[in-house]
């Protein structure tokens, strides 16, 4: 390659006088960036006021965080998909498939009282692999057949659920005792962990996602494809390959979420997580992700997931009937996005 282009600095036009009021606007910007966080805080404070003291006990705090794990982990994958301008309706089914795969593999080890560590790890990897295959298929179909992901994943949602029922023989699959079941214990086994291992894994995965999105070329490609696919192609990004990578990579997160789901249920359940995809999408969107692509963040999405968990927990604590909970969650979903719109207005 020839040496770098040397362009003499332009002389024709005078540089634009720089704007002076950068300070106040940057304060605003920071405030806006933390909008989901403030949302979480205000919901929390609201419940602290309304609820019995049991709500803000440390133990309940642990409960809420543990209940965020599954949606939270899956939301990391969904965040990447949504930033890339896609959507995945099949996550719930994939999670169900994952739990069934784990249970089936665990049962292969024979009817011992406790499953060996080897087979336990194999089971977890099996679930993750099963989800990865689903993700890969979705990526392949969307990018090769050029079908919108809404439809592809709507189809895969049915297919994965059907396969889960098939593998599980339409039943919940019970399993021997094993270490995976300890991932979501509110009082973790080595007590110094304080939180369940699942919580620590979530924190790790959130950090991983944030780093991938911000500091890697792959992350940059995700944003580029979501913002303008044609530009991405023009700039030499192999869009269909990247898209397959995105769906496969995020399906790995779904796989981990399914391990957590199994840990919660201790059985393989082909009907598990029905409709959970909507919770997951809602979490990402509440956290600032835009369904038209190019916007979203790991931090925002996990906060979105936390908001929903706090709401559910708080409503249970208050003894609010289930239907009121549903109404409140519906309002919150719309409200959060309305605030996000408003934020964009201010920014512009």
């Amino acid at each position, binding site marked *: *390659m*020839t*040496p*770098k*282009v*040397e*362009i*003499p*600095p*332009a002389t*024709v*036009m005078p*540089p*634009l006088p*720089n*704007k002076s*009021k950068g300070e106040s*606007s940057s304060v605003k910007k920071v405030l806006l960036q933390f909008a989901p966080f403030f949302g979480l805080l205000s919901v929390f404070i609201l419940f602290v006021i309304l609820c019995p003291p049991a709500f803000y006990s440390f133990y309940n705090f642990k409960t809420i965080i543990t209940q965020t794990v599954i949606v939270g982990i899956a939301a990391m994958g969904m965040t990447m998909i949504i930033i890339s301008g896609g959507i995945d309706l099949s996550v719930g089914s994939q999670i169900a498939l994952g739990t069934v795969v784990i249970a089936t593999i665990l049962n292969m080890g024979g009817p011992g009282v406790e499953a060996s560590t080897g087979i336990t790890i194999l089971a977890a990897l099996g679930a993750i692999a099963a989800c990865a295959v689903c993700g890969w298929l979705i990526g392949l179909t969307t990018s090769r057949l050029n079908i919108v992901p809404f439809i592809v994943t709507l189809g895969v949602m049915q297919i994965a659920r059907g396969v889960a029922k098939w593998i599980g023989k339409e039943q919940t699959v019970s399993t021997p005792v094993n270490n995976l079941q300890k991932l979501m214990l509110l009082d973790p086994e080595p007590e110094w962990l304080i939180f369940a291992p699942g919580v620590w894994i979530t924190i790790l995965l959130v950090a991983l996602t944030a780093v991938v999105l*911000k*500091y*890697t*070329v*792959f992350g*940059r490609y995700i*944003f*580029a494809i979501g*913002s*303008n696919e*044609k*530009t*991405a*192609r*023009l*700039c*030499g*990004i*192999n869009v269909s390959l990247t898209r397959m990578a995105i769906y496969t990579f995020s399906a790995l997160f779904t796989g981990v979420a399914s391990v957590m789901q199994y840990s919660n249920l201790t059985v393989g359940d082909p009907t598990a997580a029905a409709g959970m995809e909507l919770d997951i999408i809602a979490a990402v969107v509440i956290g600032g992700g835009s369904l038209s692509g*190019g*916007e979203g963040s790991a931090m925002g999405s996990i906060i979105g997931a936390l908001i929903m968990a706090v709401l559910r927990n708080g409503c249970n604590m208050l003894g609010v009937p289930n239907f009121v909970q549903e109404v409140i969650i519906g309002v919150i979903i719309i409200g959060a996005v309305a605030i996000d719109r408003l934020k964009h207005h201010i920014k*512009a």
Partner: protein
Amino acid sequence: MPDTLLKLTNIIKTFGPVKALGGVQLEVAQGEIHALIGENGAGKSTLMKILSGAEKPDSGEIMFDGKPYHPQNPAEGRLSGIAMIYQELNLAPHLTIEENITLGIEKSKLGFAKSQKTLVQEALRILGQPDLDPSTPVNTLSIAKQQLVEIARALVLDTKLVILDEPTSSLTAADTQALFEVIARLKAKGIAVIYISHFLEEVQQICDRFTVLRDGQTVGTGSMAGTSIQQLIEQMVGRSLEDMYPHIPHTLGEPVLEVQALQGKSALPRSASFTLHRGEILGISGLVGAGRTEMIRCLFGLDKVANGKVTIMGRKDLQAHYLRPEKALDSGLDLLSENRKEEGLAVNLPIFTNITLSALKRVSRFGWLNLAQEKQQADEWCTKMNVKCRDSRQEVGALSGGNQQKVSIARLLNHNSDIFFMDEPTRGIDVGSKAEIYRLIQTLASQGKSIVMISSYLPELLGICDTLAVMHRGELSAVKPISTWTDHDIMLYATSGVAV
């Protein structure tokens, strides 16, 4: 001077911290063709958006047709007699010509739409398109025809003022000429026209009076007769511009790109052969739809190739068949898209991301980005290219059209290829910046880069290219040195495919 139709006084408009308009005055007489000119980002489009009702001014007064005029939305503006033809076409692609033209003003009976075919046909006839079938879906029409459909929209209403914002930037010379005829017919009907363009020759050719904007302020107005292009430029830029087409010495070297009988899968191009040398600036001329864009898209791997042999730098493994954009980029090709908004830029990403997107390898290691280095590189380009922005973290979408184009070019320069395909590189760019880009292209050539430049603006091709070829219906003429081409030869080949 005839009666004043439109009078704007002290229009001020800010977008957050950006002051787009700082007290503009504009007066347009009945039935005149009024040019509105200015550099990129001077505020022309913003002013017109205010006139059409798409934006509201912060302060200032507008008098239209003797009455104060405060449109709340574009529809109100349209019904009050101001029609706006935007830089980007505004049509509903799934609807037919008739449906598009009568959109919003349908006649109906009990909610059922009545056919207004005759009205539409009449409008099309005035525009010289009597054969166009009103029931054709618009997404099958060429850009020029689509533009006429937009103008027809103005004719079915009692329109007194038509605003054309850079209407010719995506038209070829022939279509431009046809458009001028249309404008003349509008004038004959007593309709006033505000005409925005960066092509000052055009402006001088068809306009009666002009107003110049600079940095959101009116800096001059007057009658076109007796004003030279040089004077217009001086008012726009604030000083005189001595050399529009600079020439930096460069020599042609060995062949770097050989194309033989290239044929695209989508019928265009049908047959293209040429050889590009190191340090050569090759111009490609032709009518819109001739297939010039498709040709370079095929070469870059964006469109599918049916047939043909392509050799890049003598390498056997780089046939057009196997090319994908990523491979093309790796082997030293780069492409500047003609469609900035849809393809060239990711408009809701920051400037720096756009500049470095095709060369992330240079600022990354094992897939990890060096953000500081990336930002620094982008900032350098912003300075060198004189991009008017607050900060390279700003979204590209917030820049004016010309500045967006500069960002696209900065991406190419940052990637630093050996062969540049530039599709309409000066589209929507003001004269001052144009001269900059010409100088840049010359500089690149002098450094041993090769450039293929597609343009529908003949003077610039004649001004800066070393060699030139013309395309007619997918067939590329022979490449000849620029000095052996005449305007006449070029137009002859472009319209009829006959070589002299």
